[in-house]
């Protein structure tokens, strides 16, 4: 029986280990090694931090990196602000059928490819688009207005794209807060604001954290939205990685960029978890 249990453990362990070693661990080690080599001649390399040095000494790279980080944090904050009242409404105000219907409606757009969603915003925002036409019909502007190709358009796209990943964890945690607890808060003399601050938000914290982590990751790693909705000046860090890898074929620098992105995302995710006293198992698992 013990031997059988060992065999079972071994059989179940092997796919997991194969997956994590071959597709996650080794590729990342390889990427680190490639990022640490410098080209000194045709087919000749030496080990060094040259690629990282290039990253830090070139203002365009560093500026794009920081800009991507700041805009992703901003997108996460805006998504949270928009999603929280909606999730609260679905979890606590709506009842029965209405609640499930609203929740399903929130999910629908996200079963559609990100490409389609971005395409929709392009049709709406561009110079010949719906909103521009609408403004002209209402006589609010004289000529066509270009609403596409700027940072605000990127922001709209990012917030839209990641809305689901904020709403679902928020609704799930808010649903588990009993109405009686909120009532008790009011009975004890709390106002709407203090009940929100002292009861609802602390209770929703795991949901807020997991929502924020996912939304931040999706924004930071997004390539499609900034490329399609952003203009010439609104470069996203993933676009730099893509161009180093596919256009310039400079894998060494591209791998260093990839690593910087990984470090940035892990640091911010880790910081968010530490700041709120959550753990990855609890928020994701």
């Amino acid at each position, binding site marked *: 029986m013990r031997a*059988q249990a060992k065999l079972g*453990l071994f059989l*179940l*362990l092997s*796919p*997991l280990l194969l*997956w*994590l070693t071959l*597709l*996650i661990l*080794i*590729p990342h080690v*390889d*990427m680190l090694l490639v990022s640490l080599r410098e080209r000194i001649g045709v087919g000749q390399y030496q080990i060094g931090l040259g690629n990282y040095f290039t990253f830090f000494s070139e203002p365009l790279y560093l500026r794009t990196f920081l800009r991507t980080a700041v805009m992703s944090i901003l997108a996460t904050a805006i998504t949270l602000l*928009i999603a929280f009242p909606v999730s609260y409404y679905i979890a*606590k*105000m709506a*009842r029965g059928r209405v609640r499930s219907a*609203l929740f399903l409606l*929130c999910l*629908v*757009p996200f*079963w*559609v*490819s*990100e*490409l*389609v*969603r971005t*395409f*929709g915003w*392009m*049709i*709406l925002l*561009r110079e*010949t*688009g*719906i909103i521009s036409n609408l403004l002209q019909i209402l006589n609010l502007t004289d000529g066509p207005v270009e609403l596409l190709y700027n940072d605000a358009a990127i922001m709209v796209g990012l917030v839209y794209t990641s809305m689901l990943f904020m709403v679902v964890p928020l609704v799930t945690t808010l649903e588990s807060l009993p*109405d009686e607890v*909120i*009532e008790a808060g009011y009975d004890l003399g709390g106002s*709407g604001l203090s009940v*929100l601050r002292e009861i609802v938000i602390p209770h929703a914290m795991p949901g807020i954290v997991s929502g924020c*982590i996912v939304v931040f*990751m999706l924004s930071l*790693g997004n*390539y499609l939205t900034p490329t399609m909705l952003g203009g010439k000046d609104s470069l996203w860090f*993933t676009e730099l*990685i*893509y161009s180093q*890898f596919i256009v310039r074929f400079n*894998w060494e620098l591209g791998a260093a960029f*990839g690593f910087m*992105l*990984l470090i940035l995302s*892990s640091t911010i995710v880790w910081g968010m978890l530490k700041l709120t006293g959550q753990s*990855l*198992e609890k928020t*994701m*698992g």
Partner: protein
Amino acid sequence: MIPSIPRSRFLTASYTAYIVLFFIFLALPLVVVAVFAFNDSQFPSLPWEGFTWSWFFGDARPMIGVFHERPILRAIGTSAIVAVFVSILSVGVGLSNAFLFNRYRFPGQGILYVFMLLPLVIPGIVLGISILVASSRAAEGLWDMAQWDVAALRPGLTLVILGQFSFVATIATLVIAARLQKFDQTLEEAALNLGANRLTAVRTVTLPYLMPAMIGAFVVAFLMSFENFNTTLMLVGSDAPLTIAMFDRLKEGSTPLLNAVSLLLMLVSSGLALIMIFAQRRD
């Protein structure tokens, strides 16, 4: 603020208005994409030139519909093949992982579980380039050592499947593990008492119980693979899946053909989502 606590009418009204606005915001891009699939014009924008089915069924230039546009049809086929492979792999590995973490206790389990979650917090594009780098180094190594040219290690569908699998597997694991957690193990013990061996007990009792979660995981994996862009972008070879093919066209300028493809995608994926909801609601 809950329904049992009285509030001012103004507050209720503005809250409701906010919710309505939010859902308009959600629906707007999709509605626009769908509507302009029927515009009788070369561009998916105003003015409205009249209703047409040409972007679906048209077979003459300049209006070749989806069903006569070979490259798009081929891309849909490619995406479907990739998605099926990714889903089968992910559900298989996910099932194995779920049993591993639910039924066994072994040293290092906690760390392994966190490690298993990591693909969710690695940006998709980083997953893509790391697999690209590793596979091409492996290919170079094999060539240098034994003059083997392994086509599967060059950018192409095999790498796309592996790249998508590398993070979809985590999601499949979580979906299946969540249901296995709720399983009453005494049912399995009853089967053992009735003379079944371990494997039979799992096959006849536990697996049927897990079936809704497995179908759910399969559908989620299929959709995630079908819509994946970032990881695929870095690993794609000459056969482009649909999202990549559409992206290339969108860069050149869009015709309502793309709207028609998008509308079909919406219909298929909402259909799949409905199947999943019913599969999970059946019990």
